[in-house]
C-alpha cells in the first residue's frame, strides 16, 4: 500500500471534510471533530513539534486514555517521519524507564496530571534515569496550574506555537509529509515480556496499513462503521482497530467520557464494529444473569425459554444453515421479546462484526453471544504480526478455532508443531535488539509465533498451546501422542466451578490434573445444597465437591475422546488442591499464568501420589500471606479416578 498514515488522513479531509472523524463525550454531550478539523489540528501540532525539535526517526512517547487530541499527536509525529510510542497509561513510573531510555525519548505528550506526575518522577529519580526527557506536554490542565517545571507545557501552547510557525513557514508541513515514505517506521509498541525487559516492536507504515486494509476487506468495513475506543492505545489491537483501520476506512472513532462510563457510552453509540477480550464478554453476561436471577417469574420463564430456543436455533441461523419454519418463527418471537432488548441493553444492537481474542473463550460464552444474533468471531495475531493473521469468516465462527489465514498470510508448521507465519504485516525488528529479532524472524521471512497448533480439515487454524509447553506421552496405549497442557486446562477452566487447573503428562503414560475450585461458584453451589463448610480447604475436600468436579473432568474427557490427536490426553486421575494457586507464592505469574516447573517441584509428593495410585496424600505447604508473613497449611488430599472414554472418530 503506497501511502502513509498522514496521507490517508489528508485524503479523507479532502474528500469528506465535514464528515465526523472522532467523537468524544465531554460535559455530557458527544463533541464531533470533523476530518478537516482533524487535519488542521494535526498540521498545527506537527509544526509545533517540528519547531520544538522533534526530528525524523526520533521517538515521541504518548501516554493516556483514548483522546482525540492524543490521536492527533500520533498523526503529527508520523507527519514528520518521527515515531509515536504509545505506552500503557496504567503502568507505574518505573515501568516507563526502560522504553524511554531504550528509545532515547526526549518528547512526551501525556493526558493529565497523573501522567505528568509520573514523567516528573522519572526525571527526578536518582541517579537520573531519563535525563534526555526534556519536553512534556499535557492535554488536560486540571490540577497542573501551579506546576512550574522546565519543559512542561499545555498542549494548547504547542498548538499555538505550531499555528504561528505554520503561518510563517507554510511549506514545512507539506514537505515533511511528502518526505515520509511507506517503508519508514510508523510506530513502536512495547510488548510485556514474561522474562526480562519488554521489547519494542517496530512497525512501518506499510506493515500496519497493509494488515489494517486486509482486515477491512475481509469484513467489508466501510466509512459508515462506528467504533468505541476504550482499550489502552498502547496495545496493538486498539491501535489497529481504532487508528490504522480508522484511517484506512475513514469511519468514526468514539472516545468514552471516562474509563468508568464505558458501559453507558457503549449504549449511546451502539458500535457496528466491536472488539473485546473474553473477560469483558464474560463480565457482561454475568451482569445479565445476576439481574435475571432477581427478575419476576414471568420474565425469568420468558428469558430461559427463549434462550433455549436461541441456543438451538441461533448459531445455525448465524452459520447460514437451513432452519425449519417453526424454529424460525420461535426465534423471531424470541428476538422481539428477549434477544433484541437484551442486545440493546448490552449496547450491542447495531454490531455487525465483533471480535474477541487474547485468550481462549469458553464455548458456552461464545455460543451465547452468537445465539442472540451478535456476529462474534475470533481472530489470531500478535503485536509482531500487526494483529491480523487468521480471521473467522462470517458463517464459520467456531469456539475452538481462530479462523482461516487471510489474504497475504502464509502459514506453515515446524516439526515440533510451532506455527510459522509469513505476511506483509510482520514486524521490521525488535528495537535495538538484533539477537531477539534473529530468534523470531528467519532469513526467509518466517516469523516464529511460539504457539503450537494445526490447520484442521476445513483450513481453520486451531491453537493448542505455547510451543514450549507441548510435550509427548510416553508408554501406555497412547505412546508418543501429543500432550498440550494448556488446551486441557482451558477446557477445564470453562466450567464455572473450576478456577485453575494444572495438567501433568509430559513423558508419562497417562494424564493427571490438579484442580483449584472457584470458591465463589463452588461455595454458592454448596450453600444451595445445604452443605456446611468452614473454609476453602474444607470445601475443596468435600466428597460432594469431588463428585461435581469429577463430572466436569469426565465431560472434558468425553470431549477429548472425539479428537484423534488428543484422545490420549484424557485425565485419568485428579485431585483438588487445598489452597488456591497464588502469584504471591510464585505458583502463578502476575498475569495469572500457571508456572508449571515451579508447581511440579513444589507439589512433587502429590504428583508421585497421583501416579502411584494412592487414594489420598498428606501434604504441608508454606504459604505467604498478603502482609508478607508466612505460615503452613496442611491437608490430607483425596485422589480420585475419572472415567476414560475410548477414542471415537468424529462423524463427518
Amino acid at each position: 500500500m503506497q501511502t502513509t498514515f498522514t496521507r490517508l488522513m489528508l485524503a479523507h479531509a479532502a474528500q469528506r471534510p465535514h464528515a465526523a472523524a472522532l467523537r468524544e463525550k465531554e460535559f455530557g454531550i458527544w463533541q464531533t471533530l470533523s476530518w478537516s478539523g482533524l487535519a488542521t489540528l494535526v498540521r498545527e501540532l506537527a509544526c509545533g513539534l517540528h519547531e520544538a525539535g522533534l526530528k525524523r526517526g526520533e521517538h515521541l512517547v504518548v501516554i493516556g486514555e483514548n483522546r482525540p487530541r492524543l490521536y492527533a499527536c500520533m498523526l503529527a509525529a508520523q507527519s514528520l517521519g518521527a515515531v509515536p510510542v504509545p505506552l500503557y497509561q496504567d503502568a507505574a513510573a518505573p515501568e516507563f524507564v526502560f522504553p524511554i531510555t531504550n528509545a532515547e525519548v526526549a518528547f512526551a505528550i501525556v493526558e493529565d496530571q497523573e501522567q505528568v506526575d509520573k514523567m516528573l518522577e522519572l526525571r527526578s529519580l536518582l541517579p537520573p534515569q531519563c535525563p534526555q526527557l526534556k519536553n512534556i506536554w499535557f492535554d488536560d490542565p486540571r490540577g497542573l496550574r501551579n506546576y512550574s517545571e522546565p519543559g512542561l507545557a499545555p498542549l494548547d501552547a504547542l498548538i499555538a506555537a505550531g499555528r504561528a510557525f505554520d503561518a510563517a513557514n507554510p511549506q514545512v508541513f507539506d514537505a515533511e509529509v511528502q518526505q515520509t515514505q511507506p517503508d519508514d517506521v510508523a510506530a513502536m509498541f512495547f510488548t510485556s515480556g514474561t522474562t526480562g525487559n519488554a521489547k519494542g516492536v517496530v512497525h512501518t507504515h506499510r506493515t500496519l496499513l497493509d494488515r489494517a486494509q486486509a482486515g477491512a476487506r475481509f469484513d467489508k468495513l466501510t466509512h459508515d462503521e462506528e467504533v468505541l475506543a476504550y482499550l489502552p492505545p498502547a496495545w496493538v489491537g486498539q491501535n489497529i482497530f481504532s487508528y490504522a483501520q480508522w484511517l484506512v476506512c475513514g469511519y468514526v472513532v468514539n472516545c468514552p467520557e471516562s474509563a468508568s462510563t464505558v458501559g453507558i457510552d457503549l449504549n449511546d453509540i451502539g458500535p457496528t464494529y466491536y472488539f473485546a477480550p473474553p473477560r469483558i464478554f464474560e463480565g457482561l453476561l454475568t451482569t445479565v444473569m445476576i439481574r435475571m436471577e432477581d427478575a419476576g417469574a414471568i420474565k425469568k420463564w420468558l428469558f430461559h425459554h427463549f434462550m433455549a430456543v436461541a441456543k438451538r436455533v441461533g448459531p445455525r441461523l448465524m452459520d447460514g444453515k437451513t432452519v425449519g419454519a417453526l424454529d424460525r418463527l420461535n426465534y423471531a418471537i424470541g428476538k422481539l421479546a428477549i434477544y433484541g432488548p437484551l442486545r440493546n441493553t448490552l449496547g450491542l444492537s447495531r454490531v455487525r462484526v465483533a471480535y474477541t481474542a487474547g485468550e481462549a473463550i469458553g464455548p458456552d460464552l461464545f455460543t451465547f453471544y452468537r445465539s442472540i444474533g451478535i456476529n462474534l468471531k475470533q481472530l489470531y495475531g500478535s503485536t509482531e504480526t500487526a494483529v491480523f493473521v487468521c480471521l473467522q469468516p462470517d458463517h464459520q465462527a467456531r469456539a475452538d478455532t481462530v479462523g482461516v489465514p487471510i489474504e497475504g498470510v502464509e502459514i506453515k508448521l515446524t516439526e515440533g508443531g510451532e506455527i510459522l507465519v509469513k505476511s506483509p504485516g510482520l514486524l521490521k525488528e525488535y528495537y535495538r535488539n538484533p539477537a531477539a529479532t534473529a530468534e523470531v524472524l528467519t532469513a526467509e521471512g518466517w516469523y516464529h509465533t511460539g504457539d503450537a497448533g494445526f490447520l484442521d480439515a476445513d483450513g481453520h487454524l486451531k491453537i493448542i498451546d505455547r510451543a514450549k509447553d507441548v510435550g509427548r506421552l510416553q508408554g501406555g496405549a497412547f505412546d508418543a501422542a501429543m500432550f498440550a497442557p494448556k488446551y486441557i486446562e482451558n477446557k477445564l477452566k470453562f466450567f464455572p466451578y473450576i478456577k485453575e487447573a494444572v495438567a501433568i503428562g509430559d513423558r508419562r503414560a497417562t494424564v493427571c490434573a490438579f484442580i483449584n475450585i472457584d470458591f465463589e461458584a463452588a461455595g454458592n453451589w454448596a450453600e444451595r445444597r445445604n452443605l456446611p463448610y468452614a473454609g476453602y480447604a474444607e470445601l475443596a475436600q468435600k466428597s460432594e465437591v469431588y463428585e461435581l468436579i469429577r463430572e466436569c473432568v469426565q465431560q472434558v474427557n468425553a470431549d477429548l475422546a472425539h479428537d484423534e490427536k488428543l484422545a490420549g490426553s484424557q485425565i485419568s486421575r485428579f485431585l483438588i488442591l487445598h489452597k488456591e494457586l497464588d502469584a504471591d507464592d510464585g505458583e502463578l505469574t502476575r498475569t495469572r499464568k500457571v508456572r508449571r516447573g515451579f508447581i511440579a517441584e513444589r507439589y512433587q509428593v502429590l504428583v508421585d501420589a497421583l501416579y502411584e495410585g494412592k487414594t489420598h496424600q498428606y501434604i504441608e505447604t508454606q504459604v505467604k500471606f498478603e502482609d508478607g508473613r508466612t505460615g503452613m497449611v496442611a491437608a490430607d488430599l483425596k485422589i480420585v479416578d475419572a472415567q476414560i472414554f475410548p477414542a471415537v472418530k468424529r462423524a463427518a
Partner: protein
Amino acid sequence: MATRKVGEVILEVKNISLAFGGVKALTDISFDVKEHEIRAIIGPNGAGKSSMLNCINGVYQPQQGSISFRGQTFKHMNSRQVAEMGLARTFQNLALFKGMSVLDNIMTGRNLKTKANIFQQAFRLPFGWGAAEREESAQRLVVERIIDFLEIQPYRKTAVGKMPYGLQKRVDLGRALAMEPQVLLLDEPMAGMNVEEKQDMSRFILDVNDEFGTTIVLIEHDMGVVMDISDRVVVLDYGKKIGDGSPNEVRSNPDVISAYLGTSH
C-alpha cells in the same frame, strides 16, 4: 499549592453568643476567615460547631455579636441574602432530593442564577427556542462542568437515593458548587466515610480551593484530615473558643489537648 495566595479578611465573626433558653450554645466567639484560605472549625461533640455554621448561614440568629462579610456588617444573617452574597453550604446529614437524579439535584443549586419567569418555565417551546430553554442549556453546561470536576459522570442519571453514601456526599458538594460560591461552608464533609472516600473528598476540597479560589470554612471531626488540609483552625469546646491558629499551634495548645483527651469540667 505553594503559590496559592491567601488574601484579606473576607468574613469576620465578632463576639457571637447564641443561647437556646438556658442552654448556651455559643459564648462570645470571634474569629475571621481570609480570602482563598481553608479554615477549619473543630471541637468535641456538642462544642457548638454546627451552631456556629448555622449563625453564619442565617439559620440561627445569635442574641449578641455581629458578622461582617466583605466589609458589610450584619446583626444577623438571612438565608436567602447569604446565598445571594455568595455563601453556599453542605449538610452534615445530607439534604438531597433522594428520588431525583444527580443531574437534577445539582441543577437545583442553579436556582438563584435562573432568570426566566414562571410562564416561560411552564410553557416550553420546541427546539430550544424559548428563554427558559436557552437558559437551561447554559445552566446545564455549568452543572456538567461540576459533574466532570467531581468525576461522577457514570451517575449523571442515577437517582441519588440509590448511590453509596460517599458519592451522595460528593453530590451534596456539587450542588453547593453549582451556586459558584465565594465562600463554601462544609458541615462535616467526611463524616461516616471510609478511608478511601475521605482521601477522595480531601482531594476535591483542595481542588475546589485551588481551581476556583473558593474560600472554605469546614467543620470536621477527623483530626488527621483537618491538620492536613487546613490553613488555620478554630477550636471550640462547650461553646467557647479555646484555640485559634495554624494546625501546628493548635496541636500544641494545652487547652485543646485537654479538651480532646478529656478533663473534668
